[in-house]
């Protein structure tokens, strides 16, 4: 009995803490722009979005206020057997995988099922549940389901600060060769105050998103540059606009866009200021990454 009570209290605390979780910004997802000005292949599937494009067009929408009320019913009558997140316990099944629940629309399936005499943890008969309570339970359950989908507000990065700042500093000044281009008191001063930890980690590993610059404006420092040497002509250099096996287009120092046909005799030299970052991906360890983030977090 005591175990039961403790279990119930513990489960209640989990439910309450989940409910108290502040809405968070959905994950940025993919497509933030990979190296070399390429966009990363788009998400292979577009589920998520708290339901997103997946499932039937008439799938229930969650009213958060009703889901909160449903949570009260859940804690009072269901949590002991079906768990804080409705994913089941040793004494009750996972309801989020229940076909009956997945077919439910605002209580039209779970209501009749419960009222047939499903036991409640308070000992009351299930027939005592009002239609409103059943609807609220339906909203609560649907919210639990949506929280497992990509794009849900709870579906985001947790605390990633696990590294050793001192080891990170040593890597920054040593093996990582970061000081070749960066300085803790220069360009990176105050970086901890500018970005979340995960963004520092992402920018360090995958810089270059949107580095094409604005049309007409000066190219960013990270822009890829090319120098071309047409046979018999003077070399021309500038910011790379486009290149494939057949042509290369650059913007020269005067801002003019010029396209050249590529031939075996036509030499193209490319300079990518972010090459060291790309090369780092081959050698950096996960420990180095976490230590570096911990060190950069000290640059307040």
């Amino acid at each position, binding site marked *: 009995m005591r175990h039961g009570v403790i279990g119930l209290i513990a489960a209640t605390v989990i439910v309450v803490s989940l409910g108290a979780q502040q809405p968070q910004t959905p994950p940025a997802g993919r497509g933030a722009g990979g190296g*070399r000005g390429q966009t990363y*292949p788009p998400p292979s599937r577009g589920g998520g979005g708290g339901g997103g494009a997946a499932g039937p067009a008439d799938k229930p929408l969650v009213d958060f206020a009703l889901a909160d009320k449903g949570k009260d019913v859940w804690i009072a009558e269901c949590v002991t057997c079906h768990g804080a997140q409705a994913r089941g316990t040793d004494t009750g099944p996972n309801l989020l995988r229940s076909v009956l629940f997945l077919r439910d629309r605002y209580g039209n399936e779970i209501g009749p099922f419960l009222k047939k005499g499903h036991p409640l943890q308070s000992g009351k008969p299930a027939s005592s549940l009002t239609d409103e309570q059943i609807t609220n339970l339906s909203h609560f359950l649907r919210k639990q389901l949506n929280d497992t989908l990509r794009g849900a507000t709870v579906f985001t990065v947790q605390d990633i600060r696990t590294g050793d700042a001192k080891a990170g500093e040593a890597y920054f000044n040593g093996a990582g060769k970061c000081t070749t281009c960066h300085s803790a008191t220069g360009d990176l001063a105050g970086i901890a105050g500018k970005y979340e930890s995960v963004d520092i980690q992402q920018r360090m590993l995958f810089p270059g998103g949107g580095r094409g610059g604005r049309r007409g404006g000066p190219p960013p420092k990270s822009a890829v540059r090319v120098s071309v040497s047409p046979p018999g002509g003077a070399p021309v250099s500038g910011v790379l606009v486009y290149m*494939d096996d057949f042509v290369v287009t650059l913007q020269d120092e005067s801002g003019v866009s010029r396209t050249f046909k590529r031939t075996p005799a036509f030499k193209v030299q490319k300079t990518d200021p972010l090459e060291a970052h790309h090369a780092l991906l081959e050698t950096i360890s996960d420990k180095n990454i*976490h230590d570096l983030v911990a060190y950069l977090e000290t640059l307040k």
Partner: protein
Amino acid sequence: MKRFTCVLAASVCAAVLVSRAQGLDPARLLKPATDTWPTYNGDYSGRRFSTLNKINANNIGALSLAWVYRLNLGGGPVIGSSATIKSTPLMIDGVLYFSTPDHAWAVDARTGREIWHYLWKSTGGNHLANRGVAILGDNLYFETPDDYLICLNVKDGTERWHKQVADLNRFYYGSVAPVIVKNHVIVGVSGDDLDIPGYLDARDPETGELQWRWWVVPQKKGDPGSETWPNEEMARHGGGMTWQPITYDPELNLIFVATGNPQPVLAHKNRAGNNLFTASLVALNADTGKMVWYFQSSPHDTHDWDSTQPGVIFDGEINGRPRKLIAQAARNGHFFVLDRTDGKAIVSAEYVKTNWALGYDEKGQPVPNPAKMPQVDGALVSPAAGGGANWQPPSFSPATGLFYVPAARTFSMFYLYDPGDNPQGWGGQDRGGYSESMVQAIDYKTGKIRWSHKWEGAARSGLLSTAGNLLFSAGPGNSMVALNATTGDALWHTRLNGAISNGPITYELDGLQYVIVGASDMLWAFVMNK
């Protein structure tokens, strides 16, 4: 009078053509001629190789535009990819048949003129893609996002029947191109939002009734593979979608199905074990659906690397001995050549450099490194979730002996979002990314890269190789490129309206060789007039 005879002859000819344009003789599925492309891959092998050589490495510069067709949605709404051609067209008797989510079309292969269009009224589902149609006799089959198998009259696009093949409430959706095998319509299922089991169905071509079903994951304790799951509950909901078309060996009567990743996708604490038969290449008896062998290319996957890349069938020589082979370039960056009679590995090798495996086990399957599974603070993994290869079909040329892969070298950070003991759905995601696109040409005998053609930008599409020593692929900047199939040198290119969104096909009509490719909402036809 002479002119009249001519007109009469032409009319008779036209009448013959019209009468022939009534569907597909099943015998042509077994030995496709060069004037047809009767299945998703052109034939059952998955090679996407054509013996045609009228377009070749010497004359490719003279390839001309024949026509373009822009999708007519018939007033239907644009939902997801309903206006993007991700299907590979079939070409039968001078007519192209293709699909997008909720739509199917017939278009004249000589002119691009629309013959008919069919619109399905949707009740929902993921409209990410539709890979194509299948045809048997006068019947055309395709799947819808809301889980119906539709049968149309191939002559006029009118509906004959529809049959539900999966439960939309469980977030299944339909996207795979069905494949006809004897008297079976082979259909798979899609969906990885909820924890649901994958399966492959054989359905009656006349009624759509179920003939047999093979479950990818065990549905009860004691079923084959259940020893690789912690309990029945997890096995029964363990994923393994069948969202790419199968290949088939008529002689062995084996269907080869490549299966998707397990569920939950990234968080995996509650599914310890190899999670059979997810992320595997599996041989099934075509008439019974019984499993004959399996090879798991991603044991206990935790990176969304479905192994649904096709098992490509060819006969080759290994150590001087003729062998019946099947090869797969899996999404996880590894290439496998197996004996297709028993599934035993002959070659296991990386086709792009990866960082997640500790080596291969005694079966030639990669052994995942636990440190590179998703972590709360992130793990740097190559390839990213998008994979070294994805759904875009590869090609194998018996003329060069090379297996061509539309590949990418990618990195991303894999985060665990749900570190609890009982995750569900995804429980994590990869973020960020570095990517280099390329075509890898692999020597099937060794797994070594013979040549690598790197693109100066993002480019990935299905591939087509031909006896003209050509390999057609997407290039950067919305281009289609022809490479020399032996050397990888770029020979020809043209700019399209968008990035290639399917795999190119080729056929011969009236003595002329065509190449057809889809880019966004347009179908492009090129022809060699010389």
